[in-house]
């Protein structure tokens, strides 16, 4: 069996807690079914562009699927953090692997979790999304690219945080706070274009805005030139963050 397959399988088996994964899925479902319908009666339909307007529950359902991207990303940091705490990081590095294989295996495991989680939430959200979906081949590619790049970005953020923060409590609280900021300054819950300054400016720097916009555009066939710009920006942000994570990872002393 290939070294990457062995490492990824091991990361998925050893470092992922089923209870945590279950509750990571519950978060987006809570937003979709409780917040979405709760606010649905008072929030008017929202325009996505390309002449498409959707209800708030639909708007939020699409956003909540991308929320699993953040959750998946957090897992990358958790995997590395637990391996360092439990001595498995060094143990693996004295085995038939190198650092590059190890870190890539974490990113790959994170992608699997992020994309599988998004698909699962998407399936569970189908009663809400229902017949409003207008998914074509271009849309599928857009959705897949958005989820892939978003997971890489947030996985890299979590890896960098887990390298910097050695205490369990600090890692948990700081990563929760950082992802909370990303979440509420993005277009997951509301259209960032209508938000007041400086939230609007921050949202323009926030990769989750681009992930969510591209995801919605793909899902509801609402492609606009703006989305066409957002995707390369998301790709660039993911690449930069990946390099930052790799540099941080290389600094880990054994």
């Amino acid at each position, binding site marked *: 069996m290939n070294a990457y397959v062995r490492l990824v399988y091991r990361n998925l088996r*050893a*470092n992922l807690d089923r209870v945590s994964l279950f509750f990571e899925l519950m978060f987006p479902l809570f937003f979709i079914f409780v917040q979405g319908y709760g606010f649905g009666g008072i929030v008017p339909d929202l325009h996505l562009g390309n002449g498409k307007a959707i209800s708030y529950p639909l708007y939020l359902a699409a956003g909540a699927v991308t929320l699993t991207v953040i959750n998946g990303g957090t897992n990358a940091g958790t995997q590395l953090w637990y391996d360092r705490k*439990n*001595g*498995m990081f060094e143990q693996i590095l*004295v085995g*038939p692997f190198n650092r590059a294989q190890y870190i890539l295996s974490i990113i790959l495991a994170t992608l699997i979790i992020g994309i599988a989680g998004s698909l699962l939430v998407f399936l569970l959200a189908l009663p809400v999304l229902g017949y409003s979906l207008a998914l074509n081949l271009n849309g599928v590619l857009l959705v897949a690219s958005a989820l892939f790049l978003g997971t890489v970005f947030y996985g890299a953020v979590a890896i960098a945080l887990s390298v910097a923060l050695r205490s369990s409590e600090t890692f948990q609280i700081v990563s929760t706070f950082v992802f909370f900021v990303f979440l509420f300054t993005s277009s997951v819950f509301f259209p960032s274009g209508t938000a007041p300054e400086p939230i609007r400016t921050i949202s323009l720097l926030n990769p989750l805005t681009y992930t969510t916009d591209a995801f919605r555009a793909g899902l509801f066939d609402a492609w606009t030139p703006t989305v066409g710009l957002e995707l390369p920006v998301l790709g660039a942000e993911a690449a930069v963050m990946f390099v930052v994570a790799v540099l941080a990872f290389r600094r880990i002393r054994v």
Partner: protein
Amino acid sequence: MADTRSGVGSDLAIDARHLTRKFGAKEAVVDATFEVAQSEVFGFLGPNGAGKTTTTKMLTTLLPPTSGSATLLGFDLRTQGRNIRERIGVVQQQDSFDQGLNVETSMDLYGLLWGVPKNVRKDRIGELIERFSMEEFRRMSTLDLSTGQRRRLQVAREFVHEMDLLFLDEPTVGLDPIVRRTALNYFKEKVREGLSIFFTTHILEEAEYLCDRLAVINHGRIVEVDTPANLKRKFGTAKEVEFRFLEGASGEFQKLLSASGEVDAVELDVASGAYRAKTSKPEAVIPEVYRLAERLGLHVSSVYISETTLEDAFISMIEGQEGGKR
């Protein structure tokens, strides 16, 4: 054991030449030069902070040396790290475990990481669980294990995969005496089958029991490499003569014996009633004990000479070096 083919000119398991590792201005290991033969157990002893773990980390490719070179199983440490890692096993000083898995699954996953086929893993894990007496906690989560149980798992787990050279860094810390002896005997068995071992420990009885040769490191420098017997001969000058009297303790006797030129010190163990005389010439002390006893009307009930231990030799070596430094 694994396929014994190795790199070019690999009749040595380890051939270290002038290995040096600095952390900034601090020299953790300086000019370490030693060889470990195939199927040899090579002990690495030294006080805390002497450079043992840094040396182990360099040899296991975790830390690059600042200067010097080494080959392991014929592979170059600097350029063939991957080849080396494929052929070694490492039991680290610190705990290492996958949390949340049970013991058996944890061993299985470790074997899978090493690419051990499933049926081989199954047989080997069954054997190891039995050999290391882990039956009663084989289904327990690694998080619920005691320190000793977790250590047992860590040691046993390393034998799920094949290797030619094993690094053991304080492997028996936390193990009870019975399991410790089981582990040491298992290591010996594997050495007879061709395994080479680089063994770091603070427990000198273990080093003496297991190791063919020992290196003593202090302040980052190797000060001696020899067999345990030779180290004791070279550095174990102080011996002890222990004796008892039927009549019990005698202050007068202790005073007279202490005044004799052959004895460094005489101590009374009040609990057992035994005298212990430190000397480098026990053959001269014993007649003196009988002579003084007769003079004082005492009857010697037992007498024996305690051998120099490796611990005595080790302490003498380190203290000698520290004295030299001062």
